[in-house]
């Protein structure tokens, strides 16, 4: 994609907290990264994981635990959460890739449910309450992530915002590099025609597993960052609702497009904050969007736009 678009997006991201409510922006960035990670799997490898909340949520718990109870600095906490999610991704991935298609989705969903049960029952996860009051701490032991700056009369937590933005850019960059590497080309080959990829001599299981691990780790990076933003790791993070939400974000934005998950996450997060007054009707609305999307809007926003412009976005 055009270099100018990238520069514009980065400038937009840098200036956003002065215009938009920073907490909203940070939530958006976390979920956008989550959706980008998920899209690496669904959009570029053709694997539908219905259990991605397991990685997002477990990283959130691990980071929360490391920062709150072990007193680690936030960057180490996030690193720990991300590595754990990658490791969990290796375990779940090795099991799930033994089945194809629809079974893959069911296996990931069921395995994620084990993670959910652990989060519910294990002694260190706080059960129904989750981990509350996770401290943000000092980045590298130096920079106070809680520090608030007053800009034209508005208090802004800029240190935290730019930390989250940096994590997002790091994740986005890793995913982007993966997609556009020779490795990514093989993934797309597997998506298009798996038997052919096998007959060309690629060990597709290894490629799938590697893609799964990267995707899980990046979902973990998103969840770990989220736990610092909201200072909370909760059962919602590991529940199947969250797994479904990330599917919706990707589908709505455009499966297999670079910017689709960003747009989808923006749409869903905005909807959730605008419609917070309708309470649990939001589930019905999300379900409705799912149905409409699948029936008439399978390419998603970015996919439809790309079709109109006749170029990949």
């Amino acid at each position, binding site marked *: 994609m055009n270099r100018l678009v990238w520069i514009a997006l980065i400038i937009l991201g840098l200036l956003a907290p002065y215009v938009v409510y920073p907490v909203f922006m940070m939530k958006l960035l976390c979920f956008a990264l989550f959706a980008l990670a998920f899209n690496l799997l669904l959009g570029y490898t053709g694997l*539908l994981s*219905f259990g991605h909340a397991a990685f997002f949520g477990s990283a959130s718990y691990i980071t929360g635990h490391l920062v709150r109870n072990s007193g680690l600095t936030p960057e180490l906490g996030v690193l720990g959460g991300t590595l754990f999610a990658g490791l969990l991704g290796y375990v779940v991935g090795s*099991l*799930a890739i*033994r*089945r*194809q*298609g*629809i*079974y893959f*989705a*069911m*296996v990931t*969903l*069921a*395995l994620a*449910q*084990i993670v959910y*049960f652990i989060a519910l*029952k294990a002694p260190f996860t706080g059960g129904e309450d989750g981990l509350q009051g996770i401290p943000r701490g000092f980045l590298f032991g130096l920079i106070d992530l809680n520090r608030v700056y007053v800009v034209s009369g508005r208090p802004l937590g800029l240190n935290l915002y730019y930390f989250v933005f940096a994590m997002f850019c790091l994740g986005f960059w890793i995913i982007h590099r993966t997609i556009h590497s020779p490795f990514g080309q093989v993934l797309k080959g597997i998506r298009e025609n798996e038997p052919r990829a096998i007959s060309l001599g690629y060990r597709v299981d290894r490629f799938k597993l590697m893609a799964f691990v990267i995707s899980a780790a990046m979902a973990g990076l998103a969840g770990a960052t989220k736990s610092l933003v909201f200072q909370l790791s909760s059962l919602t993070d590991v529940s*199947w609702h969250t797994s*479904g939400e990330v*599917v919706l974000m990707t*589908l709505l934005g455009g499966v297999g497009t670079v910017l689709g998950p960003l747009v989808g996450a923006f749409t869903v997060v905005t909807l959730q904050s605008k419609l917070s007054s309708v*309470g*649990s*009707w*939001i*589930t*019905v609305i*999300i*379900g*409705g*969007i*799912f*149905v409409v*999307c*699948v*029936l008439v809007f*399978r390419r998603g926003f970015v996919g439809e736009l790309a079709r109109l412009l006749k170029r990949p976005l």
Partner: protein
Amino acid sequence: MELSFQTVMSQVMLGLNNGVFYAILSLGLAVIFGLLNIVNFVHGALYMLGAYVALLGYTMLGPLIGKPDFHLNYWAALIVAPLVVGLLGIGVERAMLRRLRKFDHLYGLLLTFGLALIIQGVFTNYFNVSGDAYDAKPEALEGAVNLGFMLFPKYRLWVIVISLLVCFGTWFVIERTKLGSYLRAGTENPELVKAFGVNVPLMITLTYGYGVALAAFAGVLAAPIYSVSPVMGSEMIITVFAVVVIGGMGSIMGSIITGLLLGMVEGFTKVVYAPASSTVIFLIMVVVLLVKPTGLFGRES
């Protein structure tokens, strides 16, 4: 801990009670998957809907139609709920699922997931998540029977017997009758069956209707045992997915047997190590994936 024969057997029997629900639901999933090639995520929500038809038919239908004394009794609910849900399913198949036939199977999963969210969301808004009791258990099924080694609630025994009858009845129709042979042929090669003049689209619609009606039937059976709650379906469906992965959806009998066995294993785990009972089915799934990835009764496609 002392493992007396009595405690083990009573938990295994209670487990079998869960097992028949797994069996009915995974049977429905298998039948639908066979002909429509979609995983019916909304199955759990329709199981919940079946239970609510029974509950609301008993408590609210009378006042609603202006006859406060009218209660839809249990036996009527066993017929009405599957009919209502079956018709709903037929509508869904005609209006939505049919449009997805030429696309990737994953879209069917996503669509039915959306429907499940809608149904569950609506009920969460109007009803208590912790559940309501269904008090219309027929008097004939009150009390307990002596099985020789234990006293077993009459109602639960009824649930086991009628569920097994329905499961094996379905198996018999599909595997041993002319109608079933059309269905099986439609699963193998729908184009060829069409060429023989069989109305395959109608067959697909009715199959979907029957599959979801089974879910509603299970829901009514479950209503007097568990509390009727908006989340009863989503908890159930994920477990049933694991059951389906273990058994493989290729075989009707396979899904019935797997459901029954896993229910009993779950019950047995409650005696041996209670905290593991909610995850044991998922752990068995892991083992099966490691040892026989195609599932116990599965064939590699």
